[in-house]
């Protein structure tokens, strides 16, 4: 039953032989380093504040920059949602300071909530922060392959965020056409939409630079002995995610340029002929197609879903292996699944477009691919569940969040199946069911996993532990109230309540039986906000007052970021001695010897291993 990768199979010994090659190269590399030694010493003096914290090229500092900025945006996007929920629970009610929400303001909040959460919150946190900080440490690299590009990537992200924020203050406010920016509405929107497009171009540029950097780093800078199948699953998840970002974002950039041309040059790529608005017929050449935008948008935005979920799966896999104290079940199966999933995610986009009248043949194709792509997701999730079996589970705070992720992502995935099939999608399309579905994937799914990552790697970054009790309060509050917010959405959606309604469906008779859920959801949302307070306190309080970690390998982990670096790691260079890797990623409770875990960088015991290699040769 157990398919745990162990270090003593003949295949592995073959790998060990193969690894002699990079080792040969070491002298060469050292010679290079010597040539630069004189430059080296000059740079060891104290760096100024700006160089150290703002224009830093150290992947760890950039990771922290990403993390803090993204957490801020997550909080901001969450606040927008709270205002919307206030309005939905009691339409037209006066909100302190802001007054009653106008429909225009509600639409701005809706569009910007989605944009901020996806492009400025979760992706930067999952990829920019965790990827940047952890990936080089886990593969034994001293930094990313292109440190200055890495810095540029953060700055593009930051300015993209600033442009998006500034768009609230231009005449008639921010974008109101939803995070999907569907034309023709988005083409004839007010100035905020132009700002949105400029902001997106900056955010896309940031992602592209990041993706190039991640892929190059993972391919080129793995430590000696870190073969692809010895990479922790988190690295694999980031690797595939980077490919998705690299190849899926450019078509959206193309679409963004076309929409900018529509708005600024007066072209009509997305404007059909004969369009009439409230101000009379539009004076444009016409002949364009709103559907073209949808195709280009979803060609990005479906892989984007996996950009949101794969790093989360990676984090959960790390934490589950570490806290069950046994190898991941089916590590290789999970890796193959994640590769297949990355590939398939490029050919499922039109399942967002079943009601556009594409025709049954095309619908059939995309239904099939959509059902196929659910298979690798299920394999990964099942492998994570099976990994729990027979483990001696430590219920640490990160583990609680990781365990919370599993069923929540399960609900998110399963509620997606009816949306992947045209016959059931057509009645559910554009209802609250869709909102419930993808929020289950992203909020109680991905965000719980991201919290798990914060609790898991916080001691690595700061050298201090986070408070356990506050963490547990945060976990249970988040888990319960997230369900309180999102589960009723599924019920409302099945009753037919449309999304994006300013009054939450008050004026429709069919929504009457389910309308009262709005208050319940809004109360849950505000309690969810309350449940974040322990996290915020914990996060800042532990920086100064948290218990200092007693040893570098705080969680008794096998992966390099814990076993081979000091805690926190050395600025600029990470390692005191660059490690070599001799083992599979998760050698917990190995059957041989009385050891509880063996880190990846621990050399094999001298006599036995060398003999077998010689015998092999």
């Amino acid at each position: 039953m157990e398919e745990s990768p162990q270090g003593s199979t003949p295949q592995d010994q073959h790998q060990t032989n193969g690894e002699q090659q990079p080792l040969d190269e070491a002298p060469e590399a050292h010679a290079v380093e010597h040539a630069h030694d004189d430059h080296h010493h000059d740079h060891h003096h104290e760096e100024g504040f700006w160089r150290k914290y703002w224009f830093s090229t150290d992947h760890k500092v950039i990771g922290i920059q990403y993390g803090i900025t993204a957490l801020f945006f997550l909080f901001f996007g969450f606040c927008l949602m709270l205002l919307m929920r206030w309005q939905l629970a009691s339409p037209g009610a006066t909100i302190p300071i802001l007054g009653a929400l106008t429909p225009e303001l509600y639409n701005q909040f809706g569009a910007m909530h989605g944009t901020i959460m996806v492009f400025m919150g979760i992706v930067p946190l999952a990829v920019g922060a965790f990827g940047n900080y952890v990936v080089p440490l886990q593969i034994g690299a001293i930094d990313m392959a292109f440190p200055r590009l890495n810095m540029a990537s953060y700055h593009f992200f930051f300015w993209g965020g600033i442009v998006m924020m500034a768009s609230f203050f231009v005449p008639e406010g921010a974008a109101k056409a939803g995070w999907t920016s569907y034309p023709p509405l988005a083409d004839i929107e007010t100035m905020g939409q132009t700002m949105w497009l400029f902001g997106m171009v900056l955010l896309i540029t940031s992602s592209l630079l990041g993706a190039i950097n991640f892929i190059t780093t993972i391919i080129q800078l793995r430590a000696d002995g870190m073969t692809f199948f010895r990479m922790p699953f988190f690295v694999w998840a980031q690797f595939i995610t980077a490919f998705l970002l690299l190849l899926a974002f450019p078509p959206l950039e193309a679409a963004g340029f076309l929409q900018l041309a529509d708005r600024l040059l007066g072209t009509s790529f997305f404007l059909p002929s004969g369009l009439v608005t409230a101000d009379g017929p539009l004076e444009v050449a016409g002949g364009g197609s709103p559907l073209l935008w949808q195709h280009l948008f979803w060609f990005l935005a479906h892989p984007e879903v996996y950009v949101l979920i794969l790093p989360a799966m990676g984090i959960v896999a790390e934490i589950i292996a570490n806290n069950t104290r046994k190898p991941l079940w089916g590590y290789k199966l999970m890796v193959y699944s994640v590769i297949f999933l990355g590939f398939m995610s490029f050919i499922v986009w039109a399942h967002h477009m079943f009601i556009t009248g594409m025709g049954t043949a095309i619908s059939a194709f995309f239904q099939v691919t959509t059902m196929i792509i659910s298979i690798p997701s299920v394999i990964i999730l099942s492998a994570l569940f099976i990994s729990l079996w027979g483990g001696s589970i430590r219920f640490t705070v990160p583990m609680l969040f990781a365990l919370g992720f599993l069923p929540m992502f399960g609900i998110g995935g399963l509620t997606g199946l009816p949306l992947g099939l045209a016959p059931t999608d057509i009645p559910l399309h554009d209802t609250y069911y869709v909102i419930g579905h993808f929020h289950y994937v992203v909020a109680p799914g991905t965000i719980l996993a991201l919290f798990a990552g914060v609790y898991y790697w916080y001691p690595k970054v700061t050298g201090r532990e986070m408070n356990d009790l506050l963490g547990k309060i945060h976990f249970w509050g988040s888990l319960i109230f997230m369900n309180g917010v999102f589960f009723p959405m599924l019920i409302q959606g099945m009753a037919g309540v449309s999304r994006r309604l300013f009054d939450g469906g008050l004026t429709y008779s069919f929504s009457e039986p389910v309308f009262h859920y709005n208050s319940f959801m809004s109360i849950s949302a505000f309690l969810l906000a309350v449940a974040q307070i322990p996290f915020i306190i914990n996060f800042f309080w532990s920086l100064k007052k948290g218990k200092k970690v007693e040893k570098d390998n705080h969680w008794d982990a096998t992966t390099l970021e814990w076993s081979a670096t000091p805690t926190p790691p050395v600025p600029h260079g990470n390692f005191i001695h660059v490690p070599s890797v001799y083992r599979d990623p998760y050698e917990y409770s190995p059957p041989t010897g009385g050891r509880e875990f063996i880190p990846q960088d621990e050399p094999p015991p001298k006599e036995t291993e060398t003999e077998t290699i010689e015998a092999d040769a």
Partner: protein
Amino acid sequence: MDLQIPYEVIPRRDTGVNNAKLGIWLFLASEVMLFGGLFAAYIFLRMGAEAWPGMMIPDTTTMAERADQVLSVPLATLNTMILIASSVTMVMSWASLKLNDFKKYKLYMGLTILLAFGFLIVKAFEYGSKFGHDLFPSTNMFLAVYFVLTGLHAIHVTGGIIVNAYFWGPGTKMWTQGNDHDKAHFTNRIEVAGLYWHFVDLVWIFLFPTIYLL
């Protein structure tokens, strides 16, 4: 830089490439997707169009039947020649560095930059004559596609000029004041810049028939 990142210049043995070369190929892959998206949009829009180019021949009252009645094929052909020539000089500049002939490098790189400017000047005349006939991106879908696709390509050419001009001017310090390792690094940079330049050239090779001839 504070750190010496491994495989900046020397290829990693098991992958066979250095970092920059892998990075530029990945970047070009994303560029393929960018222009792929634009070409796909072109196909999508043209399939939905009633007529293509769907406009009068300039200065006449007859409907154009082919794109070459609206656009100037001779100028575009000239531009194609210019870009291909610039790709050749780009390779020559890199080869000169390999042969340790820095003067020739300056010459060929300078030519590459001049040819690129030549391309943009011809492009400016083309655009100018369109504007002179009151033909703008907003006029119709054909011109919208023409201006936006060639415009994005021209932005890429401009980017190439900036990069190449840096390597022709201030960037040469790495070669003139550097040791052998720095020289190898500089040669590598020119190769990478060349890969980008050839890609820009290649995009034009696709754009020319697609927009002017088909």
